[in-house]
């Protein structure tokens, strides 16, 4: 046990010093220094509860994705039937129960319709996205497959994550973390954020902009009663718009969506002095908009944002330039927010904040300070106790403890892990627990001496007999730590990380390093008695 060949000593020192070196950049920056960028700089990240910042968990309403997909399919089917040669007439279209179904006017068309629709049922990667069936001889039913819905949700989440990233970038915050989590969630972490409210407003806005024709034949009484005429939908006016509290019926199909924009800026309309948002369509969107406005000159259309009508202007003339102005109900701030949201693209699916944790930078700083003071006092007390109890062996344990903290920090930096507030508690616990190994060893050496063993044998036996319990105890602690890591969330995970890494460093420093030092001392001095 006490035999340390030179290569082993060198190897242990190299490992130790490497880990300690990895801790240096973190310590240096913690004391206020600027670490030169040219040098490698593994650093421990500070969690949001220490650095200050916001953690948001967003969840997508995946039902919306399925609903929208159904609507798109309806438009595609209608277009395909219309463009068939000769045209296939359909009626009684329904999107109830998450299925798209319609009647063919003539049962004779069934094979032709099937031939046209069949290729549309197949998605990318040979995944069948829809099932096609015929009931009652001439009703066709399109049912989305599980795989199809999953693909759609997945696509929507991919692009939602991208949109979230663009919006946060617009805020000009530093180093945000945006990660997809699970099927329908996105984690957003923004350190050092001053105004979490602005962020939430920005992410809460789907920015789904639609231009739809107003159904001018709808009866006011029906609209008030919430009964939409066939082929129409009822939308409420937005809060703050001219007709707040009222609703309007618009044609369900044939409108265009504002998700093909190349630009959006907030501004002020020089004539009305109103806050407005100017938008520019891309080429395709511009053409569609030109078509819509040309065909419907003199007709009223609704500008709908996230299911609320902003205004219902009239197409006075064809709009061919590919740009438009949106007005109604804006303040300077909300116009600016909308411009940002439109620029970064609409969210393909509405997101809701289902968990928020925000800590101010002041509180984080205060936590660090208090944590460090507590750690310092705790360490000093532990050191005093160890030296008073075990003398020279206590000093070895103390030096090991010192290395333990540095190596733990170094490994955390090297692995780029995050230190959280509970993680500081984990540090303190590790300091307390690391000495347990030395206590076990030293108590065992005392015992062995008492039983009359000679110094070398007593020390050797002390390490040997104690290490069994040390390994068993640390492995069981490891099991508990891993489970905490797997099932814990956020800051609590930081606690688990420190505990787990701390187990390894504690065993290494308390068992291996002290043994090396003790054996060196025993070899050099060959004491006939030891004070332990």
């Amino acid at each position, binding site marked *: 046990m006490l035999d340390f060949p030179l290569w082993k000593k060198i190897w242990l020192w190299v490992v130790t010093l490497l880990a300690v070196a990895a801790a240096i950049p973190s310590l240096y920056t913690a004391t206020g220094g600027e670490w030169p960028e040219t040098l490698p700089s593994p650093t421990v990240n500070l969690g949001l509860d220490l650095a200050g910042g916001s953690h948001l968990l967003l969840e997508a309403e995946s039902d919306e994705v399925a609903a929208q997909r159904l609507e798109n399919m309806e438009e595609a089917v209608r277009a395909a039937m219309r463009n068939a040669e000769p045209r296939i007439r359909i009626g009684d279209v329904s999107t109830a129960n998450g299925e798209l179904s319609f009647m063919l006017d003539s049962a004779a068309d069934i094979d032709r319709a099937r031939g046209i629709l069949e290729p549309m049922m197949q998605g990318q990667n040979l995944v069948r996205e829809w099932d096609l069936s015929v009931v009652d001889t001439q009703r066709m039913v399109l049912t989305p497959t599980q795989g199809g819905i999953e693909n759609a949700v997945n696509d929507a989440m991919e692009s939602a994550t991208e949109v979230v990233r663009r919006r946060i970038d617009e805020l000009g915050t530093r180093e945000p973390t945006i990660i997809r989590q699970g099927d329908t969630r996105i984690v957003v972490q923004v350190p050092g954020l001053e105004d979490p409210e602005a962020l939430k407003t920005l992410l809460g806005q789907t920015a789904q902009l639609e231009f739809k024709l107003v159904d001018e034949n709808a009866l006011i009484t029906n609209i008030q009663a919430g009964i939409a005429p066939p082929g129409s939908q009822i939308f409420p006016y937005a809060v703050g718009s001219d007709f707040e509290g009222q609703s309007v019926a618009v044609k369900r199909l044939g409108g265009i969506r504002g998700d093909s924009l190349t630009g959006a800026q907030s501004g002020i309309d020089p004539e009305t002095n109103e806050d407005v948002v100017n938008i520019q369509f891309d080429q395709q969107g511009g053409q569609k908009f030109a078509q819509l406005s040309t065909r419907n000159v003199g007709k009223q259309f609704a500008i709908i944002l996230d299911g609320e009508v902003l205004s219902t202007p009239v197409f006075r003339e064809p709009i061919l330039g590919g740009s438009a102005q949106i007005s109604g109900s804006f303040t300077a701030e909300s116009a600016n927010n909308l411009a940002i949201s439109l620029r970064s693209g609409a969210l393909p699916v509405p997101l809701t904040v289902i968990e928020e944790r925000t800590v101010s930078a002041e509180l984080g700083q205060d936590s660090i300070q208090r944590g460090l003071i507590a750690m310092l006092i705790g360490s000093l007390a532990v050191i005093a106790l160890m030296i008073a109890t075990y003398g020279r062996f206590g000093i070895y344990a103390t030096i090991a403890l010192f290395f333990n903290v540095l190596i733990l920090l170094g490994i955390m930096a090297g692995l780029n892990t995050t230190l959280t507030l509970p993680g500081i508690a984990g540090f303190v616990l590790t300091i307390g627990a690391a000495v*347990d190994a030395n*206590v076990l060893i030293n108590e065992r050496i005392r015992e062995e001496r008492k039983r009359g063993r000679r110094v070398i044998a007593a020390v050797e036996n002390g390490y040997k007999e104690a290490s069994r319990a040390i390994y068993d105890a640390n492995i069981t602690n490891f099991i508990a730590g891993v489970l*905490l890591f797997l099932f814990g969330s956020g800051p609590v995970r930081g606690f688990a990380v420190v505990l787990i890494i701390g187990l390894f460093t504690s065993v290494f420093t308390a068992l291996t390093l002290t043994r090396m030092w003790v054996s060196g001392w025993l070899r050099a001095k060959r004491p006939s008695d030891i004070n332990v």
Partner: protein
Amino acid sequence: MKLLKLVPADTNIKFLKLRVPFFILSIVLIVGSWAAVLTQGLNYGVDFAGGQEVRLTFEQRDDAPVGELRQLVGGLGYGTPVVQEFGAPNVVSIRVPLPEAVEETPGAATEIGNQVISMINEEYPGVRTDGNETVSGKVAGEFRQDAVLALALAMLGVAMYIWIRFEWQFGAGALFALFHDVSVTLGIFAIFQLEFSLQIIAAILAIIGYSLNDTIVVYDRIRENLKKYRKMPLPELLDLSVNETLARTVMTSLTLLVALLPLLLFGPASLFGLVLAITAGLFIGTYSSVYLAAPMLIWLGVTSDSFVPKETEADLQEKKARGQV
């Protein structure tokens, strides 16, 4: 230099003599704890109950207007908020539980949070929002589920390990001791209605770890002594093992305590619950290792033969073949 000896060299305390009364006490503690948990319930924090918790500093005042805040936030109609001083007289934490009606609404907690913060900012300009946490009903439900799973798996996992490394009696004994520790900790939180959050789950897992530390050290010594003193009656052997490791038990508990106390007294207010739970668990865990984990071995029938390699079926076959049986 005269070294400190916390425990005299030759202690011979008859711990096991009182094993029955202490066992009864432990059962009473476990039953009482669960009774408290079930009747009074745990005071779930925002992590497990859902809702909002905001922490405010009134920089221009000496004392935060606790009563006024309670009335003001209560006026929003989401039930009675919990308003309490937090670390300093001018710092408060306000907790608004999620009303049952909106438990399923994903964005409700955030919405309530926004209302509370903007109202307070209007009423008390210059107040600093130090922290804000909102958790929706769904996420809170997931946290509860994960917490139960983590605790159950941790207890089973470590018990399995001990079973593999020692014998089944040791695994069962350790499991029972851990169950005691977890129960009593939960009981303390229920009786004193301390806020029960994710951090406390972390604390309980740490307690499981350190209680087990003690148990393993004692068990390891028992195993060693079982091999060494094959004729010694079990109660006497257990006493010997506990006494032999007593110095270590006391020393380790003490070092952990001196490391934790500064954190409890001077540490960040947000860590108080976590550190308090671990500190309490330190005592509970040490007690259970000595008075539950060890005597359980008597009742579960450990003998000195437990560690003698048993003859396997193959060995028997071989003996038969050689005509030795």
